[in-house]
């Protein structure tokens, strides 16, 4: 996916101006997720769970070479074909080979952020393969040609009305069709696809090194179907997704579900060991592609390596007051919200993503929510410091800050400027440029007297 993270401030402002409905839809959905998460966290000794999950992930990451080699060995023993991909091009080459060998015409896809990173859908389209996103939300945005706006709920920015309109145009359903009726239409189209596709594509929530088990979580059943019906299954797995032991799933599956949607466990979990055995239903071939794509660089980063603990639960997005205003699109890359703001500069480059660490109030809500205690607020500051040190902030900002500093350091200049500012006509009448900002807000009314004077006057009657 081509990143447009640099345009974040502009894109966020444009979205708020042009699509005011998005703020309402996203705020509603994230608050709903957030309430459920809080309820689910309160039901268990969550402090202990989070601490243990963090320690387990830190263990895996500090022994990552060992666990990668162990996982590869176990996967092979299970009859899985293992591949390694440093770049999207590596992944494309592998996928192209599978498509050609099996004469794939149709592929069904389970929701996966990593395949968004790798641009799997455009590649398949260029090979003449018809791809169906099978998660309902993902299917909606595929029909609209949009990227996902949330890790867990890719279509939370769409209102029921918009979806009714979309289905009316595509499938001729009535404009007031119920969500049930719309879901049945999608079910029919996608069931057809499941039964005829030769290839199923997925990501993975976890890969267990000890047993070579792929773990996938979902609520609809589309992942179980995508990994069960087609004769070939290809799973793209980020190298940070490892867990040491099968029993570690007993912590990570429920913790992820509670953080993501407030469930005790997601409705369906697929624990996949390999291709179907003698006389069984299931895929004849299973491929696992272990993907780097910037992760080893993150691992080498003395601070940002902690982002590799991320479970992609989306809890930090739901908790974020900034994300809630726009949803994920303005962030301009696969990962949005607080985790995107600290992950994208590492996965892309700071040069490409430097506005994202500024998309935060530093309120700390993301850290409170995170099931693996990623220090997002600290990392936001780390990236900001680096952006300034590398001279990435725009020239006008540097000049403005330098001027501000001069004025604030000199009492005389400060008085002079505050007096001048109070005497000026109101900026919204003068600057049409500011209209986007001032339109929704009351006019600025400078106080007739400066604060330090008011303060003095307040103190004087007490006879000091």
């Amino acid at each position: 996916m081509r990143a447009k993270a640099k345009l974040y401030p502009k894109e966020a402002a444009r979205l708020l101006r042009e699509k005011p409905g998005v703020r309402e839809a996203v705020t509603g959905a994230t608050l709903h997720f957030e309430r459920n998460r809080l309820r689910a966290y309160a039901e268990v000794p969550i402090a202990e769970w989070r601490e243990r999950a963090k320690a387990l992930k830190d263990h895996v990451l500090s022994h990552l070479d060992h666990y990668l080699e162990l996982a590869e060995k176990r996967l092979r023993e299970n009859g899985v074909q293992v591949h390694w991909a440093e770049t999207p091009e590596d992944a494309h080459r592998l996928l192209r080979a599978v498509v050609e060998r099996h004469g794939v015409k149709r592929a069904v896809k389970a929701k996966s952020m990593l395949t968004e990173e790798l641009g799997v859908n455009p590649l398949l389209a260029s090979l003449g393969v018809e791809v169906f996103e099978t998660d309902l939300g993902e299917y909606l945005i595929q029909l609209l040609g949009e990227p996902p706006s949330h890790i867990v709920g890719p279509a939370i920015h769409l209102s029921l009305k918009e979806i009714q309109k979309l289905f009316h145009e595509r499938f001729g359903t009535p404009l007031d069709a119920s969500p049930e009726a719309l879901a049945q239409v999608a079910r029919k189209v996608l069931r057809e696809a499941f039964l005829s596709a030769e290839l199923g594509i997925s990501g993975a929530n976890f890969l267990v090194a000890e047993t070579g088990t792929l773990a996938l979580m979902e609520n609809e059943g589309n992942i179980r179907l995508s990994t069960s019906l087609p004769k070939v299954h290809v799973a793209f797995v980020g190298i940070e997704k490892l867990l040491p032991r099968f029993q570690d799933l007993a912590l990570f599956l429920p913790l992820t579900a509670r953080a993501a949607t407030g469930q005790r466990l997601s409705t369906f979990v697929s624990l996949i060991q390999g291709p179907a055995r003698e006389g069984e239903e299931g895929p004849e071939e299973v491929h696992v592609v272990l993907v780097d794509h910037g992760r080893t660089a993150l691992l080498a980063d003395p601070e940002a390596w902690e982002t590799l603990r991320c479970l992609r639960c989306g809890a930090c997005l739901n908790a974020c007051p900034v994300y809630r205003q726009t949803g994920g699109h303005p962030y301009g890359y696969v990962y949005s919200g607080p985790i995107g703001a600290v992950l994208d500069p590492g996965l892309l480059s700071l040069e490409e993503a430097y506005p994202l660490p500024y998309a935060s109030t530093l309120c700390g809500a993301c850290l409170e929510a995170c099931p693996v205690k990623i220090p997002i607020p600290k990392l936001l500051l780390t990236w900001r410091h680096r952006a300034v040190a590398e001279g990435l902030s725009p020239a006008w900002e540097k000049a403005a800050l330098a001027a501000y500093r001069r004025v604030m350091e000199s009492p005389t200049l400060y008085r002079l400027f505050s007096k001048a500012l109070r005497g000026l006509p109101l900026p919204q009448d003068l600057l049409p440029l500011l209209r986007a900002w001032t339109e929704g807000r009351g006019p600025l009314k400078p106080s007739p007297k400066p604060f330090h004077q008011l303060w003095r006057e307040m103190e004087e009657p007490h006879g000091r």
Partner: protein
Amino acid sequence: MDARSRILSRVKRALEDRPKAFLPEHPHLPFPEDPIPLFLERLGENGAEAHLLSPEGAQALLRELAQGLPGVAFGQGVPAPFREGLPPLPPEEAPLGVSWALFAVAETGTLALSSADGRRAQLLPPTHLVLVERERVYPTLLAAFQDLKTLPSALGLHSGPSKSADIGQVMVKGVHGPGRLIVAVLT
């Protein structure tokens, strides 16, 4: 050097000076004496219909569910008495699927279904009846996983009917998998 060695050597280099973090043990949780009441309650909260029945009672329930249907899709492990008098259908066509669970978990209201039992009958019919023996219900996920000796090619954990809130945040059942899940715990 190929991609594999390049990735692994970068990982090794990144970790050279990183302190090694220890692997925490799992604590042993207090188990409820009898997990069955909790299991039935949690299944209900997950949107499934749960019953505690004798094998004969479960057979009667199945007959009732199958009444008026052209046939039923059976998992491999479903015992013969449950199949009697019910025409088998391929899962693509069957309105009802019946599976035999490998085990179940009370704390999450979960049924574990093996690929050896047949995946299609677990996923394609709109209604799914799962049979599980009382002794196979574990109190916690950890207890169940620690007890697993071998793993099937795919283990499916089902904790309720298929659902989605992707359309305007309204909860809809039966999007891809079965929209109705009925569980009989066999005494």
